[in-house]
């Protein structure tokens, strides 16, 4: 059978099978798309401010979003980037009531850690977002109301000039970047508001008084939507909003006019400093949230996958760039392997196939479900929810957009998609553009386009409006309510008779579920490459005429298989209705008698590539230091050549012998999704071993012992900048008490206390020792045997000794309890907030459950950290810090051994082991 025909036949077969599965799943599930939002309250204040208050009690946090209908498209003539500039300065501006540094102090007085709001500026809007503890809501509302009315007070020429470089960076994009406006220029022409967004910026001439006037005139309640989502009392929240925002002055803002694109297709040619030739086609399409907009996202996903399979370009980008006035659909080829015409021909064929309904329905539904799952993940987050609601209200689509949008994606089928393609894309592109690489070409602006003289859209300047002057004195920040308690979600944790385990968390509201299956390696010694290659092979194993990876993609699921030191780890993100067939597909692969030997060589090549990439990672090499400190364990260090050699020497026969042993190993499944306990258990039964399977004894691997010491990787290093000393990378790993035990909880706070900016903290010690602040990173590192606190840094070699001295002195002071109460309170607040955010994310829940499984803990303990951290005492922290000495740590250093040893001697250390590394390349040096 010719290849093409076979492929079609297989695909159709698969399509039929999956369509039945989908029908069944849809019949069984009437998904709850509420996203956990229990109620909505919508109101419009007299000054025009539209407000949405949505109650969502999953965690005691509230997200605020303030969406101003002012974006790049309203930038005045010759002041391209003004909206971006205002976006950069808005979080930092002082008001007549609050100096910029008084906001953190005010929140600190109330017991909260201040996090500056995030401001995102797009063509249509500027959105300010902030997440705060529920108890801080009224204070945060007061701060934001003060910012909305009085931020213009703080604009000075200095604030503008400080923010200018960042604003210019946000404006000037390379034309092959997703944020570039060239596609809009090509599709819509210069007379459209979006088509003139790549005009040059003249922000350098912006005057402080004019920018302040702009802020007052445009960023006020009449152009804004305020959204509160989270653990709030709607009645009380409404009262606070009315009191604080109701009296703010206001003046309406006219949106830019929707101009029809000119009917003549544009063809742009430009030169830019891009690495390879780039070509794209662009169409004007349905505007953001219009009925066809969601379908076009799915079209883009399908086209990306299908064009990628044709391997015509180094990179394929197909995307629906949704905007309020109109959208643009872009299909781009980066680094064409033949010609751009060939890419365009292929694009035309795929569009035709979609329009005629020749693309398998399963492929389309898989893409639609995948997109819904991506959105589901985004809406896990309170900030994601607040932003989505704010945009929707701004566009007149109402507050309940999240369920509406999720339902819209879930309802997309092949027939709808074909109709959407016919309506929106089945015509010659409205514009095309090609970029020729030229290192010395400008990055942006008119200089791209030689001889461009097309008249440009210019936003109409609105005259300064007479804003109603506020009356009376500004209200004081209100006092707080009672503190909240946090109750993490829980679910069953089953250990079956055969030793397999299920750990489950129910999570309703968003159409995405997550699963992770772990199978521990047998204790028998094995090649270090075996797990890595096996992971590759499994994803390429045959299922229903295609590979596991592809079959799951058609189900809208995302698969990752890894083979780290301890176990085989399979992670799945899928629409809830597809988890059953996804588990069936996975189960059939795990049950296969023989591994697909035909894919063995490709799997080895792919693994070797992965090892090379991993060697380049500047922050994860601490595993190598730990490996050197545990030479007799399964974590033992292997040099990069040894790793590659192990891959080369691995034989298929070795894998085939190993596979039946692995199949008998116990399995642990972590599952998070919108299921009840019974459904979760029935789903688990599909992928765990049958109850009749023999009881598998979990073979305890040899316990690894990590020896304290200094492990030096000898490598000559070039300075990253001229006239500077060569750099060294250092990681210090201190062993910690077991994870999720009372003695461990203070460890969650320790990374905070390694920050240089604390009061009388590490920064002060660095200054005392004449050391500069290094590039640094700190976290807790978890593995099955031992948990560590990690502090990694990179410094010039001549700074190594003073930095280590400073660290030593700082830790000694921590151990004596020298830290300020406010830093301690902030550390707790930050960690508590972080852990609560983590507990909302399905992916983070899975990770927590997996850690719990590895540490033999209950699932709810894994999500309980927020509460436990709150109870840590300063004494417990200093007691833990007493163990943070260099003689108890595993220390890794990459650098020239002779000079490193000299530096180590000055702090009373000496190298325990020295291993040779290949010289550092210039590229690696720059990366680090």
């Amino acid at each position, binding site marked *: 059978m010719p290849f093409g025909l076979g492929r079609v036949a297989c695909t159709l077969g698969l399509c039929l099978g999956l369509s039945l599965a989908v029908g069944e799943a849809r019949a069984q599930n009437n998904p709850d798309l509420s996203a956990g939002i229990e109620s909505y309250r919508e109101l419009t204040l007299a000054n025009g401010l539209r407000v949405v208050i949505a109650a969502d009690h999953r965690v005691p946090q509230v997200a605020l979003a303030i969406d101003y209908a002012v974006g790049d498209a309203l930038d005045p003539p010759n002041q391209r980037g003004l909206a971006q500039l205002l976006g950069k300065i808005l979080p930092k501006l002082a008001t007549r009531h*609050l100096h910029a540094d008084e906001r953190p*102090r005010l929140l*600190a007085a109330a017991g909260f850690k201040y996090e500056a709001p995030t401001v995102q500026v797009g063509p249509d809007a500027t959105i300010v977002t902030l997440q705060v503890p529920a108890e801080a809501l009224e204070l945060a509302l007061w701060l934001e109301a003060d910012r909305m009315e009085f931020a213009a*007070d703080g604009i000075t020429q200095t604030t503008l000039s400080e923010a200018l470089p960042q604003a210019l960076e946000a404006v000037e994009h390379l034309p092959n970047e997703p944020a570039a406006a060239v596609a809009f220029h090509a599709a819509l022409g210069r007379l459209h508001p979006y088509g003139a967004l790549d005009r040059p910026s003249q922000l350098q001439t912006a005057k402080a*008084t004019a920018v302040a006037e702009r802020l007052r005139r445009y960023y006020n309640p009449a152009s804004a939507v305020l959204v509160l989502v989270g653990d709030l009392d709607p009645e009380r929240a409404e009262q606070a909003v009315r009191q604080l925002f109701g009296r703010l002055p206001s003046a309406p803002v006219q949106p830019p006019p929707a101009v029809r694109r000119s009917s003549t297709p544009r063809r742009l040619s430009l030169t830019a400093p891009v690495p390879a030739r780039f070509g794209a086609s662009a169409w004007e399409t349905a505007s953001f949230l219009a009925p066809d907009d969601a379908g076009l996202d799915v079209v883009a996903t399908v086209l990306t996958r299908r064009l990628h399979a044709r391997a015509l370009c180094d990179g394929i980008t197909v995307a629906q760039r949704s905007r309020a006035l109109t959208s643009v659909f872009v299909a781009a080829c980066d680094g064409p392997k033949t010609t751009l015409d060939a890419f365009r021909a292929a694009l035309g064929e795929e569009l035709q196939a979609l329009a005629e309904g020749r693309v398998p329905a399963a492929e389309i539904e898989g893409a639609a479900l995948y997109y819904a799952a991506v959105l589901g993940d985004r809406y896990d987050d309170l900030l994601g929810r607040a932003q989505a609601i704010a945009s929707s209200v701004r566009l007149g689509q109402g507050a309940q957009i999240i369920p509406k949008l999720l339902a819209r994606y879930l309802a997309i089928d092949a027939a709808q998609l074909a109709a959407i393609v016919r309506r929106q894309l089945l015509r010659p592109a409205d514009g095309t553009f090609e970029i020729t690489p030229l290192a010395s070409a400008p990055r942006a602006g008119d200089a791209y386009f030689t001889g461009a003289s097309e008249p440009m859209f210019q936003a109409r300047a609105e005259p300064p409006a007479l804003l109603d002057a506020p009356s009376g004195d500004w209200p004081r920040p209100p006092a707080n309510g009672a503190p909240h308690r946090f109750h993490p979600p829980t679910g069953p944790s089953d250990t079956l008779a055969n030793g397999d385990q299920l750990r489950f968390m129910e999570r309703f509201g968003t159409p995405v579920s997550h699963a992770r299956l772990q199978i521990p390696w047998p204790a028998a010694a094995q090649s270090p490459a075996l797990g890595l290659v096996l992971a590759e092979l499994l994803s390429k194993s045959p299922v229903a005429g295609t590979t596991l990876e592809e079959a799951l993609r058609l189900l809208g699921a995302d698969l990752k298989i890894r083979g780290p030191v301890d176990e085989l780890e399979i992670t799945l993100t899928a629409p809830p209705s597809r988890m059953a067939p996804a588990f069936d597909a996975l189960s059939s692969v795990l049950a296969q008698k023989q591994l697909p030997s035909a894919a063995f060589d490709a799997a080895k090549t792919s693994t070797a590539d992965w090892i090379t990439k991993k060697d380049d990672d500047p922050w994860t090499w601490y595993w190598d230091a730990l490996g050197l400190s545990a030479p007799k364990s399964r974590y033992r260090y292997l040099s990069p050549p040894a790793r590659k050699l192990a891959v080369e020497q691995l034989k298929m026969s070795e894998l085939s012998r190993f596979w039946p042993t692995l199949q008998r190993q116990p399995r642990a499944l972590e599952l998070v999704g919108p299921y009840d306990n019974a459904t979760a258990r029935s789903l688990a039964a599909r992928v765990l071993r049958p109850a009749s399977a023999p009881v598998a004894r979990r073979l305890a691997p040899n316990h690894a012992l990590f020896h304290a010491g200094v492990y030096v990787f000898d490598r000559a290093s070039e300075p990253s900048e001229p006239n500077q000393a060569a750099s060294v990378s250092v990681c210090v790993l201190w062993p910690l008490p077991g994870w999720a035990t009372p003695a461990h909880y203070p460890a969650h706070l320790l990374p905070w206390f390694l920050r240089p900016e604390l009061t009388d903290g590490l920064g002060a010690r660095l200054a005392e020792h004449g050391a500069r602040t290094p590039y640094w990173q700190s976290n807790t590192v978890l593995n099955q045997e031992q948990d560590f606190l990690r502090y990694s840094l990179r410094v010039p070699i001549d700074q190594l000794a003073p930095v280590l001295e400073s660290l030593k002195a700082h830790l000694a002071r921590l151990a004596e309890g020298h830290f300020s109460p406010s830093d301690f309170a902030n550390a707790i607040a930050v960690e508590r907030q972080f852990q609560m955010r983590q507990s909302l994310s399905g992916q983070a829940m899975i990770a927590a459950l997996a850690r719990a499984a590895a540490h033999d803990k209950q699932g709810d303990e894994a999500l309980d950290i927020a509460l436990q951290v709150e109870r840590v005492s300063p004494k417990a922290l200093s007691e833990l810090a007493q163990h943070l000495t260099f003689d108890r740590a595993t220390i890794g250093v990459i650098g020239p051994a002779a000079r490193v040893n000299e530096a180590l001697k000055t702090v009373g250390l000496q190298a325990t082991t020295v291993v040779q590394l290949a010289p550092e390349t210039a590229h690696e040096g720059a990366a680090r």
Partner: protein
Amino acid sequence: MTAKSRFGVLLLLASSCTHARPPQAPAAHAPPVLAHTAAQSPLFELPALGLEVRPPAPMDLFESDSPLPDGMMHTQGVACSVGTQDYFVARYFRGARDRAKDEVLLENAKHALAVVSRATPIKMGEWPGIELEGKTKNQHDAWLRFYVVGDGFWIAQVERSDGALDRGAARAFFDSIVLRQPWSVHAFPEAHFSALMPDGGVRLGKKELNAADFTVAEASWLGGSETRAYFVWAIPLDEGSLTPDERMDRGLEALNRDGNRVVWQAPLAFDDARGRDVLLESKKSWTRVRFLVTASNLYMLQAAARTKDDLLDEAVLRFLTSIRWY
């Protein structure tokens, strides 16, 4: 010419750092009478600085920092030109550091002009000032008003590069200037409260207030004819058996012993705390204090001025009622 170069001499002289004393109350001359009645131009405000002015043309903001021996002198103001006549008004402030006495600054102001043909003491509310006319070193006609406020001073100047000043326009500009003291929320995380305080004053901390044992001891000294100052205090209480009222009684007795006279007092309750508003008279000044006593802390907001009347204004009331704790 920039504002900075115009007043280089002043900046240097303003840097001397003797503790500010009450001025010797110069005669309160009224400012020149408004004779010019041109149509009012739009009001221009810089609330963070406390400036209101009606300029004859749109104004541009300018700012600069100048190093002095004891730290930076910050300048912020607005300027505009109409034909050859330039207008500007600017605040020179020292980041809340102490400054020279009023009379020194007022005398130094005369160095702003190369030739001074007229010097008249003036006041704006409680802020002492001087009005000068003469020639700049470029031989331009110039007219300026200078006021000492808080930790620094304000200068408003009109200058013309060719010929005589348009005095009507200049006077309208000067007379439209209103200097409002900016206030802002100051938070004290170490004692979990916030209060409104004026911004432009000389900041006094625990050391200057001789209050090392206090959790919070901070003051903003504004000076002027009233030598107005605002103080915020918080101190942890020992675990004695005294009730809040007994503690406040003892405090007042101590104040009496120090030569103060309690003129008036009234109890108050704030959240769950007991408190008391007190008016005190001493030899040279009057003081209003709000005490608040919780189980573990004593909080005091205190406003002091030379006359009783000055303590009864809206600003003092706003200060005393502004405390919020968390």
